[in-house]
């Protein structure tokens, strides 16, 4: 088993649909590693140096790219960051893993009662919505200030150190969520079903409205994480969970246009997109293939949960890199032999010609068996060797920074990035907060939040509960 590429070069080659030295492997570890090393959730959320050290000490469980855990607690800031936002995630700081504690859960509540009201007043009033468990108001001032202003920079520095020391790439820098996914959480699935049939134009208008907000903020976040300087930080994890059971026709009408709009925006501004697709999207693969239309190769990864991977390779293989599908349940309850067999079959079905990474269905469960996660990582080495590597690198010298080739790749990425400007970030955030009142509210910034009070309807005030 010879490895002639660095972790990052291997990932880049797969994105570019080339054959690396071996199949890259990218288990998404958010909670698994902290649990495995005996950290509590609170420690994982509060002690970046300790968490980074745990990752450095257990590289045998990580693969070629690591999920920078801090994105798992974006919800701890009032204004959230990107992806699942502050209105859809639980705001608690959890103490520990089950059964003592819990992981952050997604809400699905009827938070938006009237689309027109949100267009008019924005989401600022919803931040105080009584349907939210907004425990943020019960926090200490220190916690509030830390999670609002400091934590992302602290964690970005910690993960930069990790990448420099380990050579393992980041899986993502920023995270965005498909607007229809967000709507499922804002409206609840049953209301959303009615909306799709009875007021489709409002759904589309809201998706249009949210798409830009999500995309611009994700790119801003990726810049903070070091896009163009830290391997992998230029990648946006684009969550396409998808309201369950959309028919292909509905997928084409309500899902594809906004996914395409956001992906185009990311790629045209120099970012890569790691698309995570939940559920089985085998019937939608031909539509998903069109997401690559008009875009250069090497920018898209499609990471599937239950989709038929053989079919995905057949339909998407010459357009975009694919990954995913190792069952998370198998990682908890299965045996090493079962994991090995599953990975071997996936590699057999998908790896030929490059453009493939071995990955799990979703986040590796916190209670997965370490030997199973290790077996998955090892399977890439054991079964994923390419006969002739397309390119060869001298590899990375131990702990001496990035290789010349990695630096060249990063320079190319940096030169191509068009990050959002401060004004652009302010504009989309203000629009999200204040809706059609944005212009007036921004005129009076920084008093806008005081003015928000004037927009509350009776009973919405935080003290009304």
């Amino acid at each position, binding site marked *: 088993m010879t490895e002639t590429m660095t972790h990052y070069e291997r990932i880049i080659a797969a994105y570019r649909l080339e054959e690396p030295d071996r199949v890259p492997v990218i288990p998404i570890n958010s909670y698994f590693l902290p649990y495995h090393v005996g950290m509590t959730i609170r420690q994982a959320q509060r002690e970046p140096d300790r968490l980074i050290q745990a990752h450095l000490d257990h590289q045998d469980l990580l693969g070629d790219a690591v999920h920078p855990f801090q994105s798992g607690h974006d919800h701890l800031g009032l204004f959230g960051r990107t992806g699942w936002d502050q209105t859809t995630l639980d705001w608690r700081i959890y103490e520990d893993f089950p*059964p003592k504690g819990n992981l952050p859960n997604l809400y699905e509540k009827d938070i938006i009662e009237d689309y027109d009201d949100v267009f008019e007043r924005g989401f600022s009033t919803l931040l105080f919505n009584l349907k939210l468990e907004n425990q943020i108001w019960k926090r200490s001032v220190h916690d509030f200030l830390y999670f609002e202003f400091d934590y992302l920079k602290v964690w970005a520095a910690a993960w930069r150190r990790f990448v420099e020391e380990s050579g393992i790439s980041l899986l993502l820098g920023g995270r965005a969520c498909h607007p229809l996914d967000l709507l499922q959480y804002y409206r609840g699935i049953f209301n959303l079903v009615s909306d799709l049939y009875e007021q489709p134009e409002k759904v589309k208008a809201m998706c249009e409205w949210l798409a830009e907000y999500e995309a611009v903020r994700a790119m801003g976040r990726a810049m903070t994480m070091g896009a163009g300087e830290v391997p992998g930080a230029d990648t946006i994890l684009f969550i396409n969970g998808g309201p369950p059971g959309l028919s292909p026709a509905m997928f084409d009408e309500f899902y594809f246009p906004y996914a395409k709009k956001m992906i185009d925006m990311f790629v045209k501004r120099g970012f890569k997109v790691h698309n995570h697709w939940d559920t089985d999207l085998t019937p939608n693969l031909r539509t998903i293939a069109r997401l690559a239309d008009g875009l250069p190769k090497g920018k898209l990864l499609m990471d599937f949960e239950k989709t038929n991977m053989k079919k995905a390779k057949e339909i998407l293989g010459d357009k975009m890199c694919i990954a995913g599908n190792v*069952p998370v*349940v198998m990682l908890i309850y299965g045996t090493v032999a079962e994991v090995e067999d599953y990975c071997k079959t996936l590699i057999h079905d998908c790896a030929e010609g490059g453009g493939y990474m071995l990955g799990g269905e979703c986040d590796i469960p916190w209670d997965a068996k370490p030997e199973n996660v290790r077996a998955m990582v090892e399977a890439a080495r054991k079964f994923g060797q390419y006969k002739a590597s397309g390119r060869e690198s001298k590899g990375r010298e131990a702990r001496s920074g990035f290789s010349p080739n990695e630096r060249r790749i990063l320079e190319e990425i940096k030169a191509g990035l068009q990050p959002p400007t401060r004004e652009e970030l302010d504009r989309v955030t203000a629009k999200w907060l204040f809706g059609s009142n944005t212009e007036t509210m921004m005129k009076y910034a920084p008093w806008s939040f005081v003015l928000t009070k004037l927009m509350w309807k009776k009973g919405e005030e935080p003290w009304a509960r």
Partner: protein
Amino acid sequence: MGKLSEAFVGLDKKTALQVVREELESGRDPLDLVDEARKGLERVGEKFDSGEYFLMELMRAAQIFQAAAEVLNPAIRQAYGEVTTKGRVLLGTVAGDIHDLGKNIVKILLECRGVEVIDLGVDVPAEKFVRSVQENHPQVVGLSALLTASVAEMNRTTEAIEKAGLRDQVRVIFGGGIVGEIGASRLKADFATTDVNQGIRQIEQWIGRVDPGAGMT
């Protein structure tokens, strides 16, 4: 297939409600209409099974049924008085898990079929399930979850029902994103599935076929 069934298959709420109103005005027995609506719903279920329809269509058909039921219920009460349900199912998402999507879909589909559902909500402790079984005597207990960690809690809840001496009185079904993939030997349920239609069929089989008017009022 009658006009009402056709409207269900076409997911045409407007036509379905129009047919219900017109047929009631022309003196048709409301229970006939319930029967026809359920046939339409079953046809949608068959299309779901064959892959022609997806979960979204299944949920939409159930919503149309609920809307039709609102029109039909007063007519049924007037003609037959109160109609009792024949089956009772206790549903809830187990402790530590707040996901309720799957549970809610099962609930609405069971109600459309005339089954009474007692919904305990989300993050439900095992003791609350036990108490509710003692108080409400359901034939079936449905435990829902999404998180992998919740499987252990589903088993713990079933054990609690067993310890309370109630296990012989109820059938237990597990539903949720991951349970269908876990070997039956690891689950303490009588049945486990990720497929909503499969779950509904199993529950119906357990509680027996309900009368056409059951659950409508």
